[in-house]
């Protein structure tokens, strides 16, 4: 079983939050909280100091790209997996430009998410 790394999910979908929990908690990861937009996400990152952030793109108030830009400015070593229903070349290229190393499209397979989490941590 994996070390109890702490994971924050920043996604406005309760269903995605449940799916991530279901995929990774049996493997020993601890999903500490959900934030419903990027602004809330940045606040919870400061408060909870998670080891990993799973970050959606399309969210109200502050989207995933803006959130990642703000996060990497403060902490260039932050571990972030971006998750999105869209996966076009412009978006993935933009994500890579701002420092996102792993970009997964929804729907994700649990084993694919786990593999990527293990590779980034």
């Amino acid at each position: 079983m994996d070390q109890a790394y702490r994971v924050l999910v920043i996604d406005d979908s309760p269903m995605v939050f449940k799916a991530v929990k279901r995929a990774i908690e049996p493997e020993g990861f601890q999903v500490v909280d959900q934030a419903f937009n990027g602004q809330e996400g940045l606040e919870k990152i400061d408060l909870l100091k998670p080891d990993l952030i799973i970050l959606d793109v399309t969210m109200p108030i502050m989207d995933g790209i803006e959130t990642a830009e703000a996060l990497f400015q403060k902490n260039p070593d932050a571990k972030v997996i971006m998750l999105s229903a869209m996966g076009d070349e412009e978006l993935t290229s933009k994500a890579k430009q701002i420092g996102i190393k792993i970009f997964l499209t929804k729907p994700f397979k649990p084993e694919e998410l786990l593999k990527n989490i293990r590779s980034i941590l």
Partner: protein
Amino acid sequence: MEQDKFRFFCNCFEDAFKKNLAEMFDVQIKSCNDIRKDSEKKLSAVVGVVGIYKGRIHVTMTEDLIQHLYESANGESILDEMDLCFYLAELTNMITGSAITLLNNNYKGSNLRLTPPAIFADENLDIVTPQIQLSSHTYSSNYGPIRVEIGFEGV
């Protein structure tokens, strides 16, 4: 929007629905008559699209179908109506995202993006927007019908 381009947009969304339902849930759909007269309880989700073109995708499904799709993907049942709404929103989001990916890769610079979904619980919901090109499609499946309405600002 030119008619040919609008037709291509609609085909992308239709194909995304058919492909994702088949691959994710092993559910086959085929065109049928309007489902609005069907008496089963339905939910609707609307996802907006912004970018060089603006539009919306409006999906209506019966609660039974949404329940079946959830069970198929997650191996457990949804117990409350709120979760049914959230799941329909997420499904609509994912399938629309799949179509948008294809459109953006085909039309570089379109920068089409999704807006967060809105959910409605209504028997027969019509959304009327002036100056929008609209294409409606209804499908049947073994678990319940689906109505998909694709609208984009056009000529």
